[in-house]
């Protein structure tokens, strides 16, 4: 099953890049949890180490079998994804108002993370057989729309807005990559223009509108999201050109930053490493993404290419939304920074995705 020749095509460069980003992630997480205000937080660091270990194993598992197996077993993957999403709604663990976690002994897992992978595989399978060089038409979009809607609705019910949006954004990115015809684009735009105002005036209740406003403009919530963003901007800005130095961040040490080990970890990094460090980290992520696109380009077949695009778009969206959010460019939504934010499910998903990238990359020269 496993061909020895494969090793000589192994993408060492990509692996190195991944390991470097993981290293940066661990350093930053250490700084974020090692504040003396709450020593108990240190356990998060060790937990993350365990998750990284688990993630590497998952990466290897995703890397050995030929990725065509996914194409063949696509509906099993999708069904498992949906099953887990339904399971979590039924027996999930409730933490601060949402049911997102399945308990596995001391660890908890968010099935919504797996849904991201499932939607990639399904769309890669579907589009690989339905590419239109002139762009997709309205009818072509119907099935992908249904594939995306089911997991989105299930994730949305938990509720986990951030991950739900990611499912849509990943699917959307893959669809755009395949291309939508000009006329179809116009139709879609017209449809949105027609439905949007109708929904706004007749369907949404005032409190829902207020929520959307607050989502788009955190300043409307000066005691919650607005305050977090101000503190985050102060942390980032105060890093200035070269930063305050590792473990020297003052905002984070006084716990002024909310969720500093998860969603706001970039602020901790930017405060300590300044513009120079932040640009380096962004560049590392950009390299990872370009690498992913390159793998898609070099891939031997449409399925592999589209799968690579899916993984790459997931990484892109998470970086873009997370970094944009902590800098006050994006709405406040809980999306983790890949391999840097604390969070086992997220680490696992990203690593599995990267395993697939390595998988596709390595097999690009082989004939079947």
């Amino acid at each position: 099953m496993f061909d020895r020749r494969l090793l000589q095509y192994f993408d060492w460069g990509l692996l190195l890049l991944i390991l470097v980003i993981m290293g940066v992630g661990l350093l930053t997480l250490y700084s974020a949890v090692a504040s003396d205000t709450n020593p108990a937080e240190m356990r998060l660091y060790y937990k993350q180490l365990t998750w990284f270990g688990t993630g590497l194993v998952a990466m290897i598992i995703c890397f050995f079998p030929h990725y065509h197996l996914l194409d063949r077993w696509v509906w099993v993957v999708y069904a498992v994804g949906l099953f887990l999403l339904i399971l979590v709604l039924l027996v999930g663990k409730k933490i601060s108002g949402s049911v997102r976690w399945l308990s596995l002994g001391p660890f908890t897992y968010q099935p919504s993370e797996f849904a991201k992978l499932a939607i990639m595989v399904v769309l890669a399978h579907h589009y690989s057989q339905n590419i239109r060089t002139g762009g997709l038409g309205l009818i072509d979009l119907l099935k992908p729309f249904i594939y995306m809607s089911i997991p989105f609705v299930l994730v949305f019910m938990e509720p986990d807005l951030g991950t739900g949006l990611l499912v849509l954004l990943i699917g959307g990115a893959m669809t755009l990559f395949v291309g939508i015809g000009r006329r179809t684009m116009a139709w879609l735009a017209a449809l949105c223009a027609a439905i949007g105002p109708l929904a706004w005036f007749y369907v949404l209740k005032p409190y829902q509108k207020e929520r959307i406003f607050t989502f788009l403009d955190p300043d409307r919530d000066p005691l919650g999201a607005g305050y977090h963003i101000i503190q985050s901007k102060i942390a980032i800005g105060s890093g200035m050109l070269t930063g305050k130095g590792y473990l020297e961040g003052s905002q984070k040490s006084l716990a002024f930053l909310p969720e500093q080990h998860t969603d706001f970890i970039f602020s901790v990094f930017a405060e300590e490493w300044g513009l120079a460090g932040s640009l380096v980290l962004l560049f590392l992520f950009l390299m990872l993404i370009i690498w992913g696109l390159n793998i898609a380009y070099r891939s031997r077949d449409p399925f592999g290419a589209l799968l690579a695009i899916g993984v790459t778009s997931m990484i892109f969206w998470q970086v873009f939304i997370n970094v944009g959010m902590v800098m006050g460019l994006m709405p406040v939504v809980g999306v983790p920074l890949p391999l840097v934010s604390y969070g086992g499910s997220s680490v696992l998903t990203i690593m599995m995705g990267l395993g697939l990238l390595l998988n596709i990359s390595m097999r690009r020269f082989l004939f079947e």
Partner: protein
Amino acid sequence: MSDITSREVWTEWCKQRVTYAMLLMAVAFGVLALRLVYLQVLQGDRLHRLSENNAIRLESLDPTRGLILDSGGVILADNRPRFDICLVPRDAKPRETILPLLACLLGMDQKEIEDKIGKAASFQPVLIKDDVGRDVLGIVEARRYELPGVVVRVKPQRHFPGKGTTAHIVGYLSEISLDELRSSQYPNRKSGDFIGKYGIEKEFEPYLAGKHGGRQVEADARGRTVRIMDTVFPEPGNNVYLTLDMDLQKKAEELLEGRAGALVAMEAQTGKILAMVSSPSYDPNLFVDGMTRKQWNELVKDPDNPLENKAIHGGYAPGSIYKMITAMAGLENGVLTQHTQYNCPGRLKFGDRYFRCWKHYGHGTLEVTEAIAQSCDVFFYKVGLDVGVDKIAEFARGCGLGQVTGLGLGNESPGVVPDKAWKQKVYNKPWYQGETLSVAIGQGANLVTPLQMARFAAAIGNGGALYQSMLVDRVEDPEGILVEKFTPKMVGELPVSPENLELIREGMWGAVNGPRGTARGICPSDLDISGKTGTAQVVGRKDRDKFMNELSDKIMFQDHAWFIAYAPRENCQIAVAVFIKNGEHGTACAPLARDLIEAYMDEKKEILPGTVASREQAKNGD
């Protein structure tokens, strides 16, 4: 099918798409990089300065908690300003003169203050003494110039002007616990907040609490606010009006003074609670202001359990007030008619055992109305035997026993209505006929609450309608605009025909007004009270004698006393249940019910002429 027909087409197509994607990525990351430059270079100096002393802070603005009032607007729970004396260590210079002076003014030890400040020389005010009185506050304020660094913090503190009178109903607040914080029941609460823990304060928490506000402020290097950036004003809580009549409530408390028990008065035609007192009571202010360990121990170790609301928590054997239910079961099942007569020789032989009547020499021959008035045990033993325990239980449930009355306060006990199935379930034993005799006169395993019995009396008084007992009349917002109005709700009817109910009413009238009634002579006839006494054995007579010899704490085993009443007989307005723990005999309760009903009727009389007068005044004004 796909348009991709060959490798060349695919490669060409893919190259084009990937190129686009890469360009997009470059643009997206360019935007992020520009934003970084903006924050860290262009805004860097400003943001760095703000970060230096963590200048942007969030201050919480607490809402004012809603009031709890009686039906006439008498305040039962409000908020008073609380003054805390704090010290900002860094500003307190020189300490050698400030600390001794402050200690002297506050009546504290200087050492105590030093311990509180510790070594820290921070800008954060340290609490020195909380909740000082106005006198102390005055002295501190007067010498403020000698006390740099001393800060007075004002906070609203819950206050119960009614003290113990309404303690069991209004309830109390105390600090939110960790478990409560973790549960999603109290969103937007933080540790240190006070929440309703008992009574109306707890059940109406969402109405009373209001909404927290807060503001973002910019502080200078010394921690003082230099600029308020953004404010979200707190929303005060709503006011809850109870159905209680504070005058009656006070009267009821007075009447029960010195005894352990409960008194419930209910508007007979609506189910509204006019008064509900459990005695002894406690001062709910202790829970808010804090109490000493000794005070706490006194509360929890008191054998009369002041914290318990005996009107609804405790289930007690009803004794003879249960006889109306046995009578109903007999009358409705045809084993008893208006003219059925039984002879009472003072005891009834059943099996090899004698069941005694409370009247040793017997009541002679009786019909049902007289049996109720004179509370003959033997008569009801016989009815009970004829009708059977399951029928009695069925009628008890029909009269609202064995279930909560829907008061809406926590921990309302449903009581126990024993029958064959119940015994099988709880004890896994068959029912013995002898037990039916006990149940028929309200002994045995029956447990009822004073509130249930008040509602039962109201239903007999008003002609058969069982109302949901009602404690809250309405909720108004701080401007007085109605938020929610609660309406009386009829939840059932006594399972008895009007004719048979009339027999029972006749009997209860006779108990108070008849020549041989068990409660005769308790009241002047113009009040037109009907009622029924009850005496519930705490332990069986044999056991009791044994305990009485062995134990020093004899009062524990004395009988409980009951009296339920309603008035007037026609067009009934008020129903009352009085329960006195270890009160020996029902007649001990009867005068209490009479005094309360009298107070209620007097109040009504006062109001009626008053309204006429004011109407006339209005006319004259025209």
